[in-house]
């Protein structure tokens, strides 16, 4: 089989030339960051299970996972039974687990907590831009289009909205392209392209966004056609979205950030089967994704980061579920992880704050690491302050 990557550059060069010169320095490094948002608050303790911990078993009489059922990683921690494929990533040195990530004065509302994670703010400030949007502001100032950060969705999350620049939401490259290419809309774009620029700066901004949307839609759609993945992904939306991202990356798209969500983690009742299912979707999906990239020599340039807006309380509730909690584990997956395995120790279940885990690492330490060490960006400009960077990538 001819390697798809060999065929791409010429196609792309034409495509990029027709875009009127995309900022080449932007994605020059070719590094890709894929953010996976687990919406609803994933229960971290049943994801990475402390299978030797008595407090864990006594706090969760019906909900704890038995030692025999976990995929053992160390002599105290193991994966949820749904995460067989993650075990493989772990064994291959492609996965790093960071425990107890959070922030001071944690908020237990889905909305607020998600706000904090997406904006990269402290819990007592309200910022209406996202950390990845501000990354575009700072590193992509001259970019002509908005496809440098793509969310696979129909609407754009706060995370990808900056002060001056935004990412783009594309659920289905074909549908987005055909809508934007409807005659009426392309004629609207033409009005602007032909030099008819409105005086009012907000109207000008609207037209600019329309034209950008159309050209990004065309670029993303055409790029998505270059490489068709033969990898088999798990059924369902999440697998489909990951496949879309893999196809775009392997096609050589000029995008450095991808964003995708998997929802349903708000497991207040009957958690066990539901969470296992979701974790299986995540684990199988991301495994297929890494396999797809590996076969095409792209895994070394790709880093996947998974997070959820909060973890859940240590003790289970009366409905065989768990309620909203605080700090949680996050995963980094890729071909270039310098410190695979566990980055830090397991959460201390004997030292709780009102029944919730204390955080060890600030989420902005993780963001600073991703921005600085992976994307080569000025992390303090993006985060509005200096945060610790981890030796992990």
């Amino acid at each position, binding site marked *: 089989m001819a390697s798809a990557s060999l065929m791409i550059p010429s196609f792309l060069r034409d495509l990029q030339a027709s875009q009127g010169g995309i900022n080449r320095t932007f994605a020059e490094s070719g590094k890709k960051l894929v953010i996976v948002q687990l919406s609803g608050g994933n229960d971290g303790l049943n994801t990475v299970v402390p299978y030797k911990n008595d407090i864990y078993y006594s706090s969760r009489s019906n909900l704890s996972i038995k030692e025999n059922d976990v995929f053992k990683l160390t002599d105290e921690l193991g994966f949820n039974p749904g995460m067989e494929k993650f075990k493989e990533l772990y064994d291959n040195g492609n996965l790093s687990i960071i425990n107890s990530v959070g922030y001071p004065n944690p908020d237990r509302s889905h909305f607020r907590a998600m706000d904090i994670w997406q904006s990269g703010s402290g819990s007592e400030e309200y910022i209406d831009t996202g950390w990845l949007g501000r990354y575009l502001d700072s590193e992509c100032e001259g970019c002509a289009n908005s496809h440098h950060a793509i969310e696979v*969705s129909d609407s754009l999350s706060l995370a990808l909205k900056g002060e001056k620049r935004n990412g783009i939401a594309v659920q289905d490259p074909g549908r987005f392209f055909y809508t934007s290419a409807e*005659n*009426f809309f392309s004629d609207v774009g033409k009005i602007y392209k032909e030099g008819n620029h409105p005086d009012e700066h907000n109207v000008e901004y609207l037209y600019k966004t*329309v034209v950008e*949307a159309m050209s990004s839609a065309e670029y993303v759609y055409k790029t998505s056609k270059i490489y068709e993945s033969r990898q088999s992904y798990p059924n369902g939306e999440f697998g489909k979205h990951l496949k879309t991202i893999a196809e775009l990356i392997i096609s050589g798209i000029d995008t450095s950030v991808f964003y995708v969500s998997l*929802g349903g983690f*708000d497991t207040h009742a009957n958690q066990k089967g539901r969470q296992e299912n979701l974790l299986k979707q995540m684990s199988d999906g991301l495994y297929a994704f890494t396999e797809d990239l590996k076969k095409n020599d792209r895994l070394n340039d790709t880093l996947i980061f998974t997070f959820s807006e909060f973890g859940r309380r240590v003790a289970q509730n009366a409905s065989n579920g768990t309620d909203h909690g605080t700090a949680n584990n996050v995963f980094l997956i890729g071909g270039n992880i310098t410190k695979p395995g566990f980055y830090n120790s397991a959460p201390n279940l004997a030292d709780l704050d009102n029944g919730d885990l204390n955080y060890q690492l600030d989420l902005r330490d993780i963001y600073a690491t991703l921005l600085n060490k992976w994307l080569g960006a000025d992390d303090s400009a993006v985060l509005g302050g200096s945060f610790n960077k981890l030796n992990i990538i």
Partner: protein
Amino acid sequence: MDLSENRRKLKHLYSRAGFGAYITDIKEAEGQGVTYAVDRIFKDSFDYSEIKINHGAADIKNYRAERKNMSKEERQKLLKVSRQNIAKLNTTWIEKMAFDNSQLRERMTFFWHDHFACRNILSVYNQNQNNTLRRHALGSFREMVHAIAKDPAMIFFLNNLQNKKQSYNENFARELLELFTIGIGNYTEDDIKNAARAFTGWSIDLDGNYKFRRVQHDFGTKKFMGKSGDFNGDDIIDIILDDKRTAVHITSKIYSYFVNENIHMDKVNQLAEGFYNTDYDISALMKSIFTSDWFYNKENIASRVKSPVDLLAGIMRQFKVKFKNHLAMIGIQRALGQIVFNPPNVGGWVSGKKWIDSSSIMFRMKLPEIIFKSSDIEFDFKDEPLEDMTGEFQMEMSAADKRLYRQVKTSIDLTGYYNEFSNTDNEKLINGIAGFIIAPEINEKHRTLVYKYCDSSSTENMIESSILNLISLPEYQMC
């Protein structure tokens, strides 16, 4: 009198003081002028009706107290009914914005809903808070702040139930200073701590009404903004409002929302002086804005990006659009990212350009067609958890819910436009209609484009398709 100049001003006034105008509203006022219209708008908003729906099984007074005596199934059912009720409140309010005479009051209520942004899982509390905001919307800002501090939904939302002398919770005190009144930079962290002490014991009774709980209240001396005494919450509010900087902060926010995001500080200071001297009379402030000459200056016209609710309620009002499937109104709000009764956080919604990105602009331009042609919304709603105060139940949208949110079925009444334009020749038609419905100027290129996609098979089709194409232009996103 210059009719087209008057028309331009009236269009501006109605889009800012309300949610836009049906053609006959503008026709009726344009011979009389702006002052007449302003008086009319205030008069129409003097009387108003509250929002009242039937809360059914969720018609309870204090969920926190009553849930203890309920089975899990009963609680689950109650929350489900409450969620449906909140959807009903949402669409009832959107229709009120679109069809009610008292449109200034609805516009102000919406502004205050964004200002005192709050969420609650119990529909009754949402309804009550909304009516409290409506009652004070054009009255005294001082009274409104006192009322909102005793509002059950707010007391829940900003954790004042947990604010006791044994253990303080600063959430309400912080937002009161930072967002609701004087604004950041005008107080210290110590002021927040002392204000929180003053609000200890501001709680709810078993009937769901505000109750001052003496045993939880800290009666000690508080030092607050240079003053010292045994202050309670009302004292704190009065001290904040006696500070002129509060008038300046609120006036800037009103100026930014109603006039222009680029704030003209001299004008704000002048308005704030009046606001302060009338002891925070909201009507007087709004009247001085709408009757000023500068409100109608070129730089303020068409300078504002419509929020999703402005856009939806505006289309409904300008073209008398009724939704047969009410949930579609929520589907549109969801797709555009602004759902009433569901602000993102206590800071309220974003504004201006922040609403616009590559995906939202395409959906906004497509929306008129979806509404005019009753076509389904092609949109995959994100799987977002719905907030559950007690953290007891998982409440996510089902696939069936999502289908309902996507089904758009409407009726539209363009009679006013047919009457006005049935004898207008095609050359003048598009500019003529634009004069009533689009804020920015339309030039020859727009006209040619709109005309190209018009359906000239009948006069009515020609008028309808002109409207549809005009409001599909990016210019329609502005008001």
